[in-house]
């Protein structure tokens, strides 16, 4: 009898857990140095971040947000980057095939903070918003690094171009 009741709770509990992880968010480990100095400032210990799925439910993203997305080059891999430009922005690129890029409709321009040590839009171009998986909201581990991730964009990486007038970061 107890065996049946355990089976029953597992069968009902697993879908509830998966739905919670899918809609609210989950915690993931950050690998690599591409987001230094914000994430993984010391290469010895890795950070764990809370990825909020709720924040991206209708793809309302802002410049400066740290997001996780499915790599356009390898669908098995998830990468974590910062949004530099949204659709309509003109972005000054760092080593892409053209010097200036206008981000097409439904796309965004993502970059790692550690310029030169990151595989980002400067390599694969603008990415479709449909690939965005979640927004990184907090660093949760190690405990002394517990903090909210600010949506700040480095001054020299602000997009130039039509959308600059509406500065969404000030909102």
């Amino acid at each position, binding site marked *: 009898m107890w065996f049946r009741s355990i089976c029953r709770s597992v069968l009902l509990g697993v879908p509830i857990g998966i739905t919670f992880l899918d809609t609210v968010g989950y915690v993931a480990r950050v690998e690599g140095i591409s987001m230094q100095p914000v994430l993984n400032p010391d290469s010895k210990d890795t950070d764990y971040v809370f990825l909020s799925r709720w924040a991206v439910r*209708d793809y309302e993203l802002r410049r400066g947000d740290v997001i996780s997305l499915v790599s*356009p*080059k*390898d*669908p098995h891999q998830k990468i974590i980057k910062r949004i530099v430009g949204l659709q309509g922005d003109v972005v000054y690129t760092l080593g892409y095939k053209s010097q200036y890029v206008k981000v097409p409709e439904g796309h965004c321009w993502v970059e790692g903070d550690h310029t030169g040590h990151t595989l980002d839009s400067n390599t694969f171009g603008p990415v479709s918003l449909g690939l965005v998986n979640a927004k990184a909201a907090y660093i949760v581990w190690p405990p002394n690094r517990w903090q909210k991730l600010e949506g700040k964009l480095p001054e020299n990486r602000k997009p130039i171009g039509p959308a600059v007038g509406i500065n969404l970061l000030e909102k």
Partner: protein
Amino acid sequence: MAFMKFIGKTCGFMGYIIQTACITHCTFEYVGDFVMCSGPSMEPTLQTNNVLFTEHISPRFQRLRRGDIVIFKSPSNPRQNICKRITAMSGDRVRGNFPRRNQVVPRGHVWLEGDNASNSADSRVYGPVPVGLIRSRVVCRVWPFDKIALLSSSC
């Protein structure tokens, strides 16, 4: 006492609803769901208002092949889903439209085209599509009843 009973019953009922919603979410997200398609781009294979059964298992395990009909998020509008056929996988050579005539599909991308080539906005317009945007693979048509058919690879 009757009030307490009422509270207990309401809680039980709410729990039941949440359970059902979660199981439905998992089934539709990880196993398969039903999609109604509209638009002329996949004629004559699919007509407007056909209802399709799609499965989410093979895109998750990267078991897609040339000729599969897939549902994917539009590259220019993530809220919209589109149905097209995979005509080339990464590494294949394809014929594009005017700006870049011939190109090789890059790694992690697929080339999607509608069956109705003259009336279809597909990879010939917006280029190769990342595999990460593919949501599900169409298995069969379930509506209308007289046209129930398996829609497997034929390319």
